[in-house]
Protein backbone atom coordinates (compact mmCIF):
# COMPACT_ATOMS: atom_id res chain seq x y z
CA UNK A 1 0.00 0.00 0.00
CA UNK A 2 1.25 3.46 -0.75
CA UNK A 3 2.33 6.00 1.72
CA UNK A 4 4.71 5.79 4.59
CA UNK A 5 4.14 4.03 7.83
CA UNK A 6 2.08 6.53 9.75
CA UNK A 7 0.50 4.04 12.04
CA UNK A 8 2.39 1.64 14.24
CA UNK A 9 1.32 -1.94 14.57
CA UNK A 10 -0.19 -1.07 17.91
CA UNK A 11 -2.36 1.50 16.23
CA UNK A 12 -0.57 4.56 17.49
CA UNK A 13 0.69 7.40 15.41
CA UNK A 14 4.22 8.67 15.33
CA UNK A 15 3.60 11.04 18.20
CA UNK A 16 1.59 8.57 20.23
CA UNK A 17 -1.90 9.66 19.33
CA UNK A 18 -4.60 7.34 18.12
CA UNK A 19 -5.97 7.98 14.63
CA UNK A 20 -9.03 9.84 15.86
CA UNK A 21 -7.30 12.01 18.42
CA UNK A 22 -6.62 15.67 17.97
CA UNK A 23 -3.45 17.24 19.18
CA UNK A 24 -3.61 19.10 22.42
CA UNK A 25 -5.46 22.35 21.87
CA UNK A 26 -5.02 25.23 24.24
CA UNK A 27 -6.49 28.61 23.60
CA UNK A 28 -7.22 31.96 25.17
CA UNK A 29 -9.44 34.80 24.15
CA UNK A 30 -8.84 38.48 24.61
CA UNK A 31 -5.08 38.43 24.74
CA UNK A 32 -4.74 42.00 23.50
CA UNK A 33 -6.53 45.15 24.57
CA UNK A 34 -5.99 47.17 21.47
CA UNK A 35 -7.92 45.18 18.87
CA UNK A 36 -11.63 44.61 19.18
CA UNK A 37 -11.04 40.91 19.51
CA UNK A 38 -8.06 38.67 19.81
CA UNK A 39 -7.15 35.09 20.56
CA UNK A 40 -4.18 32.81 20.94
CA UNK A 41 -4.39 29.16 20.02
CA UNK A 42 -2.01 26.23 20.29
CA UNK A 43 -2.68 23.08 18.38
CA UNK A 44 0.15 20.83 19.41
CA UNK A 45 3.22 22.80 18.57
CA UNK A 46 1.44 25.00 16.07
CA UNK A 47 0.94 28.34 17.71
CA UNK A 48 -1.12 31.14 16.30
CA UNK A 49 -2.17 34.63 17.30
CA UNK A 50 -5.22 36.27 15.80
CA UNK A 51 -6.47 39.83 16.11
CA UNK A 52 -9.70 41.30 14.82
CA UNK A 53 -10.41 44.96 14.16
CA UNK A 54 -13.90 46.05 13.37
CA UNK A 55 -16.38 46.11 12.07
CA UNK A 56 -15.51 49.63 11.11
CA UNK A 57 -16.16 51.88 8.18
CA UNK A 58 -14.88 50.20 5.06
CA UNK A 59 -12.32 51.99 3.02
CA UNK A 60 -13.92 53.56 -0.03
CA UNK A 61 -12.58 51.12 -2.57
CA UNK A 62 -13.78 48.08 -0.69
CA UNK A 63 -17.18 49.25 0.42
CA UNK A 64 -19.91 46.79 -0.27
CA UNK A 65 -23.55 47.56 0.31
CA UNK A 66 -24.41 43.86 0.56
CA UNK A 67 -22.48 43.09 3.65
CA UNK A 68 -19.38 43.43 5.62
CA UNK A 69 -16.04 43.08 3.88
CA UNK A 70 -13.74 40.61 5.56
CA UNK A 71 -10.12 41.44 5.10
CA UNK A 72 -7.59 38.84 6.22
CA UNK A 73 -3.89 38.88 6.54
CA UNK A 74 -2.03 35.69 7.22
CA UNK A 75 1.64 35.81 7.99
CA UNK A 76 4.25 33.56 9.42
CA UNK A 77 6.91 34.67 11.82
CA UNK A 78 10.48 34.30 10.65
CA UNK A 79 11.12 31.92 13.50
CA UNK A 80 8.01 29.84 12.95
CA UNK A 81 9.70 26.95 11.19
CA UNK A 82 12.79 24.93 11.94
CA UNK A 83 14.77 27.01 9.55
CA UNK A 84 14.80 30.72 10.18
CA UNK A 85 13.59 32.35 7.06
CA UNK A 86 12.69 35.85 6.16
CA UNK A 87 9.10 35.83 5.11
CA UNK A 88 8.02 38.94 3.37
CA UNK A 89 4.40 39.73 3.96
CA UNK A 90 2.24 39.01 1.01
CA UNK A 91 4.34 36.26 -0.50
CA UNK A 92 2.36 33.85 -2.59
CA UNK A 93 1.74 31.33 0.12
CA UNK A 94 0.55 33.88 2.63
CA UNK A 95 -1.65 35.49 0.05
CA UNK A 96 -3.23 32.18 -0.73
CA UNK A 97 -3.68 31.44 2.92
CA UNK A 98 -5.21 34.87 3.45
CA UNK A 99 -7.73 34.19 0.73
CA UNK A 100 -8.58 30.80 2.17
CA UNK A 101 -8.94 32.30 5.59
CA UNK A 102 -11.27 34.89 4.24
CA UNK A 103 -13.35 32.23 2.55
CA UNK A 104 -13.80 30.32 5.78
CA UNK A 105 -14.53 33.34 7.94
CA UNK A 106 -16.91 34.97 5.48
CA UNK A 107 -18.92 31.78 5.60
CA UNK A 108 -19.25 32.05 9.36
CA UNK A 109 -19.81 35.79 9.80
CA UNK A 110 -23.29 37.14 9.43
CA UNK A 111 -22.02 39.54 6.84
CA UNK A 112 -25.43 40.90 5.86
CA UNK A 113 -25.71 42.72 9.17
CA UNK A 114 -23.04 45.25 8.44
CA UNK A 115 -23.18 46.80 5.01
CA UNK A 116 -20.44 49.25 4.20
CA UNK A 117 -18.34 47.93 7.05
CA UNK A 118 -15.13 46.05 7.13
CA UNK A 119 -13.58 43.53 9.49
CA UNK A 120 -9.83 43.11 9.52
CA UNK A 121 -8.43 39.82 10.70
CA UNK A 122 -4.72 39.50 11.29
CA UNK A 123 -3.26 36.07 11.90
CA UNK A 124 0.34 35.52 12.81
CA UNK A 125 1.76 32.02 12.95
CA UNK A 126 4.33 31.94 15.71
CA UNK A 127 5.25 28.33 15.26
CA UNK A 128 4.26 26.07 12.41
CA UNK A 129 4.14 22.38 13.11
CA UNK A 130 1.55 21.24 10.65
CA UNK A 131 -2.00 22.43 10.17
CA UNK A 132 -1.14 26.12 10.40
CA UNK A 133 -4.16 26.97 8.34
CA UNK A 134 -6.50 25.09 10.65
CA UNK A 135 -5.05 26.70 13.71
CA UNK A 136 -5.43 30.08 12.00
CA UNK A 137 -9.10 29.52 11.26
CA UNK A 138 -9.75 28.31 14.77
CA UNK A 139 -7.90 31.19 16.34
CA UNK A 140 -9.59 33.71 14.05
CA UNK A 141 -12.97 32.32 15.02
CA UNK A 142 -12.17 32.84 18.66
CA UNK A 143 -10.99 36.37 17.95
CA UNK A 144 -14.24 37.09 16.12
CA UNK A 145 -16.24 35.77 19.02
CA UNK A 146 -14.16 37.89 21.35
CA UNK A 147 -14.90 40.94 19.22
CA UNK A 148 -18.60 40.26 19.57
CA UNK A 149 -19.08 39.88 15.88
CA UNK A 150 -22.21 37.89 15.07
CA UNK A 151 -21.47 34.46 13.63
CA UNK A 152 -23.77 31.82 12.24
CA UNK A 153 -21.67 29.26 14.01
CA UNK A 154 -18.09 28.56 14.91
CA UNK A 155 -15.88 28.11 11.90
CA UNK A 156 -13.55 25.22 12.64
CA UNK A 157 -10.89 23.74 10.45
CA UNK A 158 -9.17 20.44 10.71
CA UNK A 159 -6.92 18.29 8.56
CA UNK A 160 -7.08 14.58 7.94
CA UNK A 161 -4.79 12.16 6.25
CA UNK A 162 -4.89 8.49 5.54
CA UNK A 163 -2.81 5.64 6.82
CA UNK A 164 -3.07 1.93 6.40
CA UNK A 165 -3.72 -0.62 9.00
CA UNK A 166 -2.83 -3.68 7.02
CA UNK A 167 -4.87 -3.00 3.95
CA UNK A 168 -7.66 -1.17 5.64
CA UNK A 169 -7.59 2.58 5.25
CA UNK A 170 -7.46 4.35 8.58
CA UNK A 171 -7.98 8.08 8.38
CA UNK A 172 -5.90 10.24 10.69
CA UNK A 173 -7.23 13.43 12.13
CA UNK A 174 -5.26 16.63 12.74
CA UNK A 175 -2.11 15.90 10.80
CA UNK A 176 1.12 17.05 12.38
CA UNK A 177 4.15 18.30 10.57
CA UNK A 178 5.96 14.99 10.71
CA UNK A 179 3.02 13.21 9.18
CA UNK A 180 2.56 15.97 6.66
CA UNK A 181 6.19 15.81 5.63
CA UNK A 182 6.09 12.05 5.36
CA UNK A 183 4.29 12.63 2.10
CA UNK A 184 0.85 11.36 2.79
CA UNK A 185 -2.21 13.04 1.42
CA UNK A 186 -3.59 15.84 3.54
CA UNK A 187 -7.18 17.01 3.38
CA UNK A 188 -7.94 20.37 4.93
CA UNK A 189 -11.55 20.97 5.80
CA UNK A 190 -12.93 24.18 7.10
CA UNK A 191 -16.51 23.92 8.19
CA UNK A 192 -19.29 25.20 10.37
CA UNK A 193 -19.71 21.98 12.30
CA UNK A 194 -23.00 22.80 13.94
CA UNK A 195 -24.61 23.51 10.60
CA UNK A 196 -22.84 20.58 8.98
CA UNK A 197 -21.69 22.73 6.14
CA UNK A 198 -18.27 22.98 4.60
CA UNK A 199 -16.63 26.31 3.93
CA UNK A 200 -13.42 25.15 2.33
CA UNK A 201 -11.82 21.93 1.21
CA UNK A 202 -8.28 21.52 0.13
CA UNK A 203 -6.39 18.40 -0.82
CA UNK A 204 -2.63 18.38 -0.93
CA UNK A 205 -2.15 15.32 -3.08
CA UNK A 206 -4.19 13.01 -5.19
CA UNK A 207 -6.55 10.90 -3.19
CA UNK A 208 -8.71 8.26 -4.69
CA UNK A 209 -12.46 8.74 -4.56
CA UNK A 210 -12.92 5.48 -2.69
CA UNK A 211 -11.19 6.88 0.35
CA UNK A 212 -12.39 10.44 0.15
CA UNK A 213 -15.51 9.89 2.20
CA UNK A 214 -13.77 8.30 5.14
CA UNK A 215 -11.09 10.95 5.20
CA UNK A 216 -13.63 13.73 4.91
CA UNK A 217 -15.83 12.37 7.65
CA UNK A 218 -12.81 11.98 9.89
CA UNK A 219 -11.85 15.59 9.23
CA UNK A 220 -15.43 16.70 9.91
CA UNK A 221 -15.40 14.77 13.14
CA UNK A 222 -12.20 16.61 13.95
CA UNK A 223 -13.96 19.92 13.28
CA UNK A 224 -16.78 18.94 15.61
CA UNK A 225 -14.28 17.99 18.31
CA UNK A 226 -12.52 21.30 17.85
CA UNK A 227 -15.82 23.13 18.07
CA UNK A 228 -16.44 21.59 21.46
CA UNK A 229 -13.02 22.73 22.64
CA UNK A 230 -13.51 26.24 21.28
CA UNK A 231 -16.94 26.50 22.81
CA UNK A 232 -15.56 25.50 26.17
CA UNK A 233 -12.87 28.15 25.87
CA UNK A 234 -15.43 30.80 24.98
CA UNK A 235 -17.60 29.92 27.94
CA UNK A 236 -14.63 30.06 30.26
CA UNK A 237 -13.75 33.44 28.86
CA UNK A 238 -17.32 34.67 29.34
CA UNK A 239 -17.38 33.43 32.88
CA UNK A 240 -14.19 35.30 33.61
CA UNK A 241 -15.30 38.53 32.02
CA UNK A 242 -18.87 38.62 33.11
CA UNK A 243 -18.74 38.34 36.86
CA UNK A 244 -17.82 41.95 37.51
CA UNK A 245 -20.33 43.49 35.20
CA UNK A 246 -23.07 41.43 36.61
CA UNK A 247 -22.50 42.62 40.07
CA UNK A 248 -22.39 46.19 39.00
CA UNK A 249 -25.44 46.11 36.79
CA UNK A 250 -27.73 44.51 39.28
Amino acid sequence: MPGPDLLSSQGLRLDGRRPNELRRIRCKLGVFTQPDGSAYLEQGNTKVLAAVYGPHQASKSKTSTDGVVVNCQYSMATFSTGERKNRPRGDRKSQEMSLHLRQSLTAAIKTELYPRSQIDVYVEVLQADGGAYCASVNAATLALVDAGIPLKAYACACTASIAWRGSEPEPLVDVGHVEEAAGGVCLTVSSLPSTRSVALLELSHKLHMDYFDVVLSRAMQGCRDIEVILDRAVREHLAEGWTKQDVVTI
Partner: protein
Amino acid sequence: MTGHVSIKLASERVNHCVAANNELPRFYTPGEVISGMQDFMRGHGTYTEDDCLKSSVAGVMQKVNKLICIRPLKSRYVGEIGDVVVGRVLEVQQRRWKIETNSRLDSVLQLSSVNLPGGELRRRSAEDEQMMRKHLQEGDLISAEVQSVFSDGSLSLHTRSLKYGKLVQGTLVKVFPSLIKRRKNHFHNLPCGISVIIGNNGYIWISPQQQDILLEDNKDEIQNYELQPVSRTDRETMARVKNCIAALVASKMMLDDTSIMFAFEESLKYDNVKDLLDPEAMLDIAFLAQHRINTVMED
Protein backbone atom coordinates in the same frame (compact mmCIF):
# COMPACT_ATOMS: atom_id res chain seq x y z
CA MET B 1 15.91 55.62 26.96
CA THR B 2 16.27 52.95 29.52
CA GLY B 3 13.78 52.11 32.13
CA HIS B 4 12.55 49.48 34.40
CA VAL B 5 10.99 46.76 32.31
CA SER B 6 9.26 43.83 33.84
CA ILE B 7 8.48 40.85 31.65
CA LYS B 8 6.70 37.98 33.22
CA LEU B 9 6.14 34.42 32.18
CA ALA B 10 2.65 33.71 30.98
CA SER B 11 2.20 31.23 33.77
CA GLU B 12 3.05 33.80 36.40
CA ARG B 13 0.70 36.43 35.13
CA VAL B 14 -1.72 37.97 37.50
CA ASN B 15 -5.25 36.81 37.22
CA HIS B 16 -7.20 40.04 37.13
CA CYS B 17 -10.40 38.40 38.04
CA VAL B 18 -11.75 40.12 41.08
CA ALA B 19 -13.70 37.58 43.04
CA ALA B 20 -17.25 38.74 43.38
CA ASN B 21 -20.58 37.23 42.75
CA ASN B 22 -19.94 33.64 41.80
CA GLU B 23 -23.33 32.98 40.38
CA LEU B 24 -22.83 32.73 36.66
CA PRO B 25 -25.58 33.62 34.26
CA ARG B 26 -26.54 31.28 31.43
CA PHE B 27 -24.18 31.91 28.54
CA TYR B 28 -25.02 31.48 24.92
CA THR B 29 -22.42 30.95 22.22
CA PRO B 30 -22.62 31.41 18.46
CA GLY B 31 -24.81 28.83 16.77
CA GLU B 32 -26.44 27.73 19.98
CA VAL B 33 -30.19 27.27 19.93
CA ILE B 34 -31.94 29.66 22.29
CA SER B 35 -35.45 28.60 21.68
CA GLY B 36 -37.23 26.40 19.25
CA MET B 37 -40.41 28.36 19.33
CA GLN B 38 -41.43 31.12 17.08
CA ASP B 39 -43.27 33.25 19.60
CA PHE B 40 -40.24 35.29 20.39
CA MET B 41 -38.97 38.30 18.64
CA ARG B 42 -35.53 38.20 17.24
CA GLY B 43 -33.30 40.88 18.75
CA HIS B 44 -29.63 41.72 18.47
CA GLY B 45 -27.21 38.87 18.60
CA THR B 46 -29.69 36.32 17.42
CA TYR B 47 -30.85 34.87 14.15
CA THR B 48 -33.36 32.31 13.05
CA GLU B 49 -32.56 29.19 11.18
CA ASP B 50 -34.52 25.99 10.74
CA ASP B 51 -37.36 27.45 12.81
CA CYS B 52 -35.00 27.94 15.70
CA LEU B 53 -33.82 31.06 17.35
CA LYS B 54 -30.08 30.88 17.60
CA SER B 55 -27.45 32.98 19.17
CA SER B 56 -24.91 34.62 16.91
CA VAL B 57 -22.64 36.02 19.57
CA ALA B 58 -21.25 34.80 22.84
CA GLY B 59 -22.95 36.46 25.75
CA VAL B 60 -25.96 36.55 28.03
CA MET B 61 -29.58 36.74 27.11
CA GLN B 62 -31.60 39.85 27.72
CA LYS B 63 -35.31 39.43 27.44
CA VAL B 64 -37.71 42.30 27.11
CA ASN B 65 -41.19 40.87 26.83
CA LYS B 66 -40.94 38.81 23.70
CA LEU B 67 -37.78 40.37 22.42
CA ILE B 68 -34.74 38.29 22.95
CA CYS B 69 -31.28 39.74 22.60
CA ILE B 70 -27.91 38.25 23.28
CA ARG B 71 -25.49 40.78 24.54
CA PRO B 72 -21.87 39.97 23.88
CA LEU B 73 -19.12 40.59 26.39
CA LYS B 74 -17.82 43.33 24.22
CA SER B 75 -18.47 44.72 20.84
CA ARG B 76 -18.26 47.93 18.90
CA TYR B 77 -20.25 50.81 20.22
CA VAL B 78 -23.89 50.79 19.28
CA GLY B 79 -25.14 54.30 19.69
CA GLU B 80 -28.41 55.41 21.12
CA ILE B 81 -29.96 58.87 20.97
CA GLY B 82 -28.77 61.00 23.83
CA ASP B 83 -25.52 59.14 24.38
CA VAL B 84 -22.49 61.18 25.12
CA VAL B 85 -19.61 60.26 22.92
CA VAL B 86 -16.05 61.31 22.49
CA GLY B 87 -14.79 61.10 18.93
CA ARG B 88 -12.09 62.09 16.59
CA VAL B 89 -12.47 64.02 13.38
CA LEU B 90 -11.48 61.90 10.43
CA GLU B 91 -12.49 63.95 7.50
CA VAL B 92 -13.90 67.30 6.64
CA GLN B 93 -16.58 66.93 4.01
CA GLN B 94 -19.26 68.96 2.32
CA ARG B 95 -21.17 70.58 5.17
CA ARG B 96 -20.25 67.84 7.61
CA TRP B 97 -17.46 66.14 9.49
CA LYS B 98 -16.79 62.47 9.64
CA ILE B 99 -16.19 61.44 13.22
CA GLU B 100 -14.71 58.22 14.43
CA THR B 101 -16.64 57.10 17.46
CA ASN B 102 -15.67 53.44 17.81
CA SER B 103 -18.89 52.35 16.19
CA ARG B 104 -18.97 50.14 13.17
CA LEU B 105 -19.59 53.02 10.81
CA ASP B 106 -18.19 56.50 11.01
CA SER B 107 -20.48 59.06 12.60
CA VAL B 108 -21.49 62.33 11.07
CA LEU B 109 -21.42 65.77 12.54
CA GLN B 110 -23.45 68.07 10.33
CA LEU B 111 -22.35 71.65 10.03
CA SER B 112 -25.90 72.50 11.06
CA SER B 113 -25.48 70.59 14.30
CA VAL B 114 -22.68 72.66 15.72
CA ASN B 115 -22.72 75.92 17.52
CA LEU B 116 -20.87 78.48 15.54
CA PRO B 117 -19.63 81.72 16.90
CA GLY B 118 -22.20 84.42 16.55
CA GLY B 119 -25.38 82.99 17.86
CA GLU B 120 -27.18 79.74 17.82
CA LEU B 121 -29.76 80.56 15.27
CA ARG B 122 -27.46 82.00 12.69
CA ARG B 123 -27.90 80.71 9.15
CA ARG B 124 -25.01 78.72 7.85
CA SER B 125 -23.49 80.63 5.05
CA ALA B 126 -21.14 79.67 2.29
CA GLU B 127 -18.31 81.24 4.20
CA ASP B 128 -19.00 78.99 7.11
CA GLU B 129 -18.54 76.01 4.82
CA GLN B 130 -15.21 77.28 3.79
CA MET B 131 -14.32 77.99 7.36
CA MET B 132 -15.21 74.47 8.55
CA ARG B 133 -11.62 73.39 8.83
CA LYS B 134 -10.93 76.43 10.99
CA HIS B 135 -13.53 75.17 13.39
CA LEU B 136 -12.63 71.47 13.48
CA GLN B 137 -9.92 69.84 11.50
CA GLU B 138 -8.74 66.29 10.99
CA GLY B 139 -7.43 64.73 14.16
CA ASP B 140 -9.32 66.99 16.51
CA LEU B 141 -11.15 65.38 19.37
CA ILE B 142 -14.65 66.38 20.25
CA SER B 143 -17.28 65.48 22.69
CA ALA B 144 -20.78 65.27 21.32
CA GLU B 145 -24.20 63.81 21.80
CA VAL B 146 -25.95 61.34 19.56
CA GLN B 147 -28.66 63.26 17.78
CA SER B 148 -30.14 60.48 15.73
CA VAL B 149 -29.36 57.05 14.38
CA PHE B 150 -29.52 56.48 10.65
CA SER B 151 -31.13 53.40 9.19
CA ASP B 152 -27.76 51.80 8.50
CA GLY B 153 -26.79 52.22 12.12
CA SER B 154 -24.45 55.15 11.70
CA LEU B 155 -24.78 58.03 14.09
CA SER B 156 -25.51 61.66 13.63
CA LEU B 157 -23.98 63.82 16.34
CA HIS B 158 -24.52 67.31 17.58
CA THR B 159 -22.47 69.63 19.75
CA ARG B 160 -25.15 72.22 20.28
CA SER B 161 -24.46 72.66 23.91
CA LEU B 162 -21.72 74.41 25.70
CA LYS B 163 -20.49 71.25 27.30
CA TYR B 164 -19.84 69.68 23.94
CA GLY B 165 -17.25 70.71 21.44
CA LYS B 166 -13.63 70.47 20.75
CA LEU B 167 -11.44 68.86 23.39
CA VAL B 168 -8.01 70.18 24.10
CA GLN B 169 -5.44 69.76 26.83
CA GLY B 170 -6.14 66.28 28.07
CA THR B 171 -5.72 62.55 27.68
CA LEU B 172 -7.89 60.12 25.79
CA VAL B 173 -8.35 56.59 27.15
CA LYS B 174 -10.00 53.97 25.00
CA VAL B 175 -11.84 51.16 26.71
CA PHE B 176 -14.38 48.65 25.54
CA PRO B 177 -17.76 50.39 25.27
CA SER B 178 -19.43 47.60 27.17
CA LEU B 179 -17.55 48.66 30.29
CA ILE B 180 -19.13 52.10 30.31
CA LYS B 181 -22.02 52.39 32.66
CA ARG B 182 -24.94 54.36 31.29
CA ARG B 183 -25.57 57.33 33.53
CA LYS B 184 -27.52 60.54 33.38
CA ASN B 185 -24.38 62.51 33.47
CA HIS B 186 -21.18 61.59 31.79
CA PHE B 187 -19.33 64.80 32.58
CA HIS B 188 -17.73 64.61 35.91
CA ASN B 189 -15.54 66.92 37.83
CA LEU B 190 -13.72 64.68 40.15
CA PRO B 191 -12.81 65.94 43.60
CA CYS B 192 -9.16 65.57 42.72
CA GLY B 193 -9.42 68.49 40.41
CA ILE B 194 -9.69 66.53 37.23
CA SER B 195 -12.66 66.35 34.93
CA VAL B 196 -13.53 63.29 32.95
CA ILE B 197 -15.90 62.78 30.08
CA ILE B 198 -16.89 59.13 30.06
CA GLY B 199 -18.07 58.67 26.51
CA ASN B 200 -20.65 55.97 26.00
CA ASN B 201 -18.57 54.77 23.11
CA GLY B 202 -15.72 53.78 25.42
CA TYR B 203 -13.62 56.85 24.86
CA ILE B 204 -12.81 58.62 28.06
CA TRP B 205 -11.46 62.12 28.10
CA ILE B 206 -9.38 63.21 31.07
CA SER B 207 -8.52 66.86 31.43
CA PRO B 208 -7.76 69.43 34.10
CA GLN B 209 -10.80 71.15 35.48
CA GLN B 210 -11.55 74.40 33.78
CA GLN B 211 -11.40 77.22 36.24
CA ASP B 212 -13.62 79.63 34.38
CA ILE B 213 -16.52 79.07 32.17
CA LEU B 214 -15.34 80.23 28.87
CA LEU B 215 -17.37 82.65 26.99
CA GLU B 216 -18.08 81.37 23.61
CA ASP B 217 -17.46 84.65 21.95
CA ASN B 218 -14.16 85.08 23.70
CA LYS B 219 -12.22 83.46 20.99
CA ASP B 220 -8.85 84.74 22.02
CA GLU B 221 -9.20 83.25 25.41
CA ILE B 222 -9.86 79.86 23.87
CA GLN B 223 -6.71 80.23 21.94
CA ASN B 224 -4.92 81.18 25.06
CA TYR B 225 -6.40 78.35 26.96
CA GLU B 226 -5.08 75.93 24.41
CA LEU B 227 -1.65 77.31 24.85
CA GLN B 228 -1.70 77.53 28.57
CA PRO B 229 0.62 75.02 30.22
CA VAL B 230 -0.94 72.51 32.57
CA SER B 231 0.71 72.24 35.89
CA ARG B 232 2.77 69.21 36.76
CA THR B 233 0.49 68.19 39.62
CA ASP B 234 -2.47 68.27 37.27
CA ARG B 235 -0.61 66.15 34.77
CA GLU B 236 0.33 63.64 37.42
CA THR B 237 -3.21 63.45 38.66
CA MET B 238 -4.42 62.92 35.10
CA ALA B 239 -1.94 60.10 34.69
CA ARG B 240 -3.10 58.56 37.93
CA VAL B 241 -6.71 58.67 36.81
CA LYS B 242 -5.74 57.15 33.56
CA ASN B 243 -3.91 54.32 35.28
CA CYS B 244 -6.81 53.76 37.61
CA ILE B 245 -9.11 53.39 34.66
CA ALA B 246 -6.66 50.93 33.15
CA ALA B 247 -6.67 48.96 36.39
CA LEU B 248 -10.45 48.80 36.44
CA VAL B 249 -10.53 47.79 32.79
CA ALA B 250 -7.99 45.04 33.36
CA SER B 251 -10.32 43.61 35.96
CA LYS B 252 -13.27 44.19 33.67
CA MET B 253 -15.02 46.47 36.11
CA MET B 254 -17.71 48.86 35.00
CA LEU B 255 -16.63 52.46 34.72
CA ASP B 256 -18.45 55.42 36.14
CA ASP B 257 -17.46 58.35 38.29
CA THR B 258 -17.87 56.35 41.46
CA SER B 259 -15.68 53.45 40.46
CA ILE B 260 -13.06 55.77 39.02
CA MET B 261 -13.10 57.85 42.14
CA PHE B 262 -12.87 54.85 44.43
CA ALA B 263 -10.00 53.51 42.42
CA PHE B 264 -8.31 56.88 42.49
CA GLU B 265 -8.58 57.11 46.21
CA GLU B 266 -7.27 53.61 46.70
CA SER B 267 -4.38 54.37 44.39
CA LEU B 268 -3.14 57.14 46.55
CA LYS B 269 -1.25 54.71 48.71
CA TYR B 270 1.08 54.26 45.76
CA ASP B 271 3.14 57.41 45.71
CA ASN B 272 4.55 56.98 42.32
CA VAL B 273 2.09 57.06 39.47
CA LYS B 274 4.08 54.66 37.44
CA ASP B 275 3.85 52.05 40.17
CA LEU B 276 0.24 51.73 39.18
CA LEU B 277 1.29 50.00 35.99
CA ASP B 278 2.42 47.03 37.97
CA PRO B 279 -0.12 44.23 37.50
CA GLU B 280 -0.25 43.45 41.20
CA ALA B 281 -0.93 47.07 42.02
CA MET B 282 -3.62 47.21 39.37
CA LEU B 283 -5.29 44.18 40.83
CA ASP B 284 -4.98 45.63 44.29
CA ILE B 285 -6.66 48.85 43.29
CA ALA B 286 -9.39 47.12 41.38
CA PHE B 287 -10.01 44.78 44.26
CA LEU B 288 -10.25 47.57 46.80
CA ALA B 289 -12.45 49.62 44.54
CA GLN B 290 -14.73 46.65 44.04
CA HIS B 291 -14.88 46.16 47.76
CA ARG B 292 -15.94 49.73 48.29
CA ILE B 293 -18.56 49.50 45.61
CA ASN B 294 -19.96 46.42 47.25
CA THR B 295 -20.09 48.20 50.57
CA VAL B 296 -21.84 51.16 49.06
CA MET B 297 -24.35 48.94 47.35
CA GLU B 298 -25.08 47.04 50.52
CA ASP B 299 -25.89 50.30 52.15
